[in-house]
């Protein structure tokens, strides 16, 4: 468990980091929290020739809301920052529910939300949370910035749309059209375990009516799955036993689980339905968060 030889750079500006990445080509890797990259390097599953550590880049550890309610999370904002965030606790129920379920405190102190999105692990929790919220990733490269919707960002297991010379500088969650409700449930065999199944549900409601719904699934497919039919079953309706059951079975339908030592495909599918139902039932019983 010792990595192969690599060159290490820790630039102080985004421009310099991009220059280094451009020169490094396919053999360069960005290092953010290192909680996924370093284990892969130790196992020699990843062997980059150049590691560009972005931890010295100034001004990227923020998470803040624009006046219109748009939430921006910088590339060096740690899981732990989000776990302790009063802003999230007050305005983002799905994110606030997910943050403490990621790994353990040691990993949360270093790992980043943006890094987790870039890593594109089908078992990563943030990808489904951000997907359910209709979020996007802002990438910066030699030609400036571009915004990539989360629906397009992940191109496969452990693959994203970034060019080798691009850095993801922030994640963006659009403002809610109405009141936010939602939650994240994760089946872990033990604290700190990766998800056997994770379910993110994000609703924007006006009165009792759901105006926008996002449901996304962790760990039950080759990538994070957007359960669009499940979300559609809720849009325009209020949360009733019938609409909840319809969403739950549509979500289970969308799952593509595989049988492995965490459980059978059937079990995982069952858990998807159970979790969708649990979150929505809770949403229907609880008052909505203040509009973001």
């Amino acid at each position, binding site marked *: *468990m*010792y*990595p*192969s*030889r690599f060159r290490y750079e820790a630039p102080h500006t985004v421009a310099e980091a991009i220059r280094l990445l451009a020169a490094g080509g396919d053999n360069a890797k960005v290092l953010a929290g290192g909680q996924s990259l370093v284990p892969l390097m130790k*196992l*020699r599953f990843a062997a980059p020739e150049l590691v560009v550590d972005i931890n010295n880049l100034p001004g990227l550890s923020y998470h803040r809301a624009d006046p219109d309610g748009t939430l921006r999370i910088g590339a060096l904002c740690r899981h732990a920052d989000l776990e302790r965030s009063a802003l999230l606790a007050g305005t983002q129920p799905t994110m606030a529910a997910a943050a403490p379920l990621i790994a353990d405190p040691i990993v949360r102190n270093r790992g980043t939300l943006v890094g987790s999105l870039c890593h594109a692990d089908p078992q990563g929790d943030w990808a489904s949370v951000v997907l359910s919220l209709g979020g996007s990733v802002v990438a910066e490269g030699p030609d400036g910035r571009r915004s990539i919707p989360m629906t397009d960002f992940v191109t496969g297991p452990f693959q994203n749309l970034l060019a080798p010379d691009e850095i993801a500088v922030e994640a963006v969650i659009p403002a809610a059209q109405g009141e936010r409700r939602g939650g994240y449930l994760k*089946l872990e*065999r*033990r*604290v*700190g*375990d*990766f998800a*056997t199944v994770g379910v993110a549900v994000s609703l924007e409601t006006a009165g009792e009516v759901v105006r926008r719904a996002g449901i996304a699934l962790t760990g039950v497919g080759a990538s994070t799955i957007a359960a669009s039919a499940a979300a559609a079953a809720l849009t325009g309706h209020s949360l009733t036993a019938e609409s909840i059951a319809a969403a739950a079975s549509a979500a289970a339908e969308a799952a593509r689980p595989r049988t492995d*030592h*965490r*459980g*059978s495909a059937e*079990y995982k599918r*069952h*858990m998807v339905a*159970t979790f969708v139902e649990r979150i929505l039932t809770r949403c229907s019983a609880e008052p909505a968060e203040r509009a973001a």
Partner: protein
Amino acid sequence: MAQIAAQRYTGASIRRSEDPRLLTGRGRYVDDIKLPGMLHAAFVRSPLAHARVLSVDVCAARALPGVVAAFTGADLEAMTVPGPDALSTLMGAAGPTPEFTLLATDKVRFAGDPVAVVIAESRYLAEDGCELVEVDYDELPPVASADFALDPGSPPLFANLGDNIARSRSRNEFGDIAATFAGADRVYDFRIDVHRHQNVPMEGRGCVASYDPDLGVLTMHAATQSVHVAKIAVTMRLGMEPDKVRVLAGDIGGSFGLKIGASREELATAAASRALGRPVKWVEDRTENLTASGQAREESFNVRAAVSNDGDLLGLDVTMVIDTGSYPGMGGMVPAIIEAMLPGPYKLAALGFESVGVTTNKAPYVAYRGPWASETFVRERVLDLIAKDLGLDPLEIRLRNAAPRTDPPAVMLTGRPLAGVTTRESLERVAKLADIPAFRRRQAQARAQGRYLGIGVATFIEAAPGPRSPEGASGPMGSESMRLRLDEDGFVVLFTGQMPHGQSHQTTLAQIAADEFGVPFEQVRVVVGDTDVVPFGLTGGSRSATMTGGVTLHGARRLKAKVLDFASHLMEVSAMDLQITDGNVGVRGDPASAVAVSEIARQAASGEFGADVDARLEVEAVFDGGEGGWSGGSHCAVVEVDVETGIVTVERYVAVEDCGVLINPAVVEGQIRGGVAQGIGAVLLERSAYDADGNFQSATFMDYLLPTACDVPRIEIEHLQTVPLDADVNFRGVGEGGMIVAPPTIVNAIEDALSPFGVRIYEQHLPPARILELIATAGSAQPSGSAQPGRSAQPGGR
């Protein structure tokens, strides 16, 4: 009855003298050893479970700058002496012994089998070198299950065995099986499985081997449970004279049975050091630890139980298959212990025991905390299954069957007397502490709200060391030696073959010696871990409390007598009138006469005495275990099962233990807590999983899940008043009991929680997904017992 001279320290929760050093990061583990010119080893390991090795090419690795050497299996074979497993030899294991080399030569036998070793200036470079080693394999059909291994058509792992039977089938009968089963009201058939899981010490295996070419001496810094057993392995496999090998050990980061002797990789590291004339370090990483260090359990049992309608367990007839993995050693020794222990504290009339051991393409079977633990799992599971079928309370069926404490004691069907066994007392006490009636009320209320709580009780006894056998002590484990000395600085120095790796010997042995000899606790030094100075010994089998505690007590008594004899010359007082208290020798009743023991020792060392005075203040003591005795206890768990997710939460855990006279209650409780935590892990989380092709599925902590503080509840512990058997040594071992009895305790509780679904459990590993399967399939199960004469097979539910 002779007593310990003073009871100042013994019996008190004295703070561990090891802790200030270990807790402030000043421990010295193998990886902390850095010798001048030291090289680093890394192993090339087989990615395949079973294959012929066609060729191994290390040329490119050798050419890499920083790489000093690369050895293939053939190289190593030429550098070492072939032979069987050192531990098996020591323990006198019977049966055919597969022959194997330190590194694979003709074939690989499990995914992770070492094929070549690269020695380089750093571990980084050694691993770079490994990537350049090219191995050509010709894949063979994997033998990935015991069932396939039993099939005569399975390809043999070891040519010299001819098949995959590592321990040939044998059967023993105790009592009249036929009559007992014929006379029983009911006969049950169960198949019970225990899954493969493993020791995961914080510190894995490792060593620094340092060969001095000028002296021809090999010094090995080892992580081991016994420096002497490690030395035996080195001398055997490297073909060296005992006086040319020295094994040292410092702090050990846990072992649980893994680090006995020296592993193939450690011996290969030693051979490389000798070949190169330079120190070589190998410290296994976590992937190596999980993949290749060794695994345990994976045993299946076909159990027939003869029972009366009232719930008397009359007879058991058990067939056991043990999957010893590749390179069998320890696995071959387990069935005999299981057979001996199967009756437990119960009054069985007949026992049939048949066993067979197979070799498969998995990591080797190693000892893991209570290696024979499956006997308790099987027995305590069977009792609950029978109780359910007969509508008996689990506590009641145990009390009904436990042998009463009589004089002379009842004798276990397999031979040993159940002297001083307090099973009934611990069962009754644990039931009281858990307040079972109050729990049943709470359980009923919870069920009405759709919550599923369960309670489980299980009991065990452990031969730690076991009652004195009529033939007396025998074998290398049968007695314990110690050298004790009074040094000129006034310290009582104990030289012991025990090799502490979490047992707190530096504290507990010092407590006993301080009390018996008469010095403050801080004035005792416990020396371990150097074959040049400590006597033979092995830390394992929960034997050190009695064996080493006893030799410390008797040795300190003899050393005191010797010191007093010498002091009587010096002080011109009869030894009878002298005593040692608080580090001073003095005349009884005359405090002014006190002379520090350091002064006595200095006088003795001055050499100014005639031949008639024995001024050598040193003794060698040997202890055979005295009357010995059993450890044991009963545990109770309360669990809640989420029947939608399958998640089990252990809400409460109560242990009532009898490990004889306590030397240090805090140390005892630490041993119990650690064992229970491992037992909880075994049931809910841990599994060394292989797929059908023998690929290992649990090579990182992402997949091999260990319990954390969140999974282990506060464990409530109460100690029973023990029944003394020996004149003065009634300390008994407690190292393994927690891990032995926690699995059946937890599984019994889970089955109780799921009883509304009719769930019956015949296995030990119950992760969330499995819990839901059990619930889903429970409806289809049929009753498993049958009234005579029509006997039905157990439905199994799988």
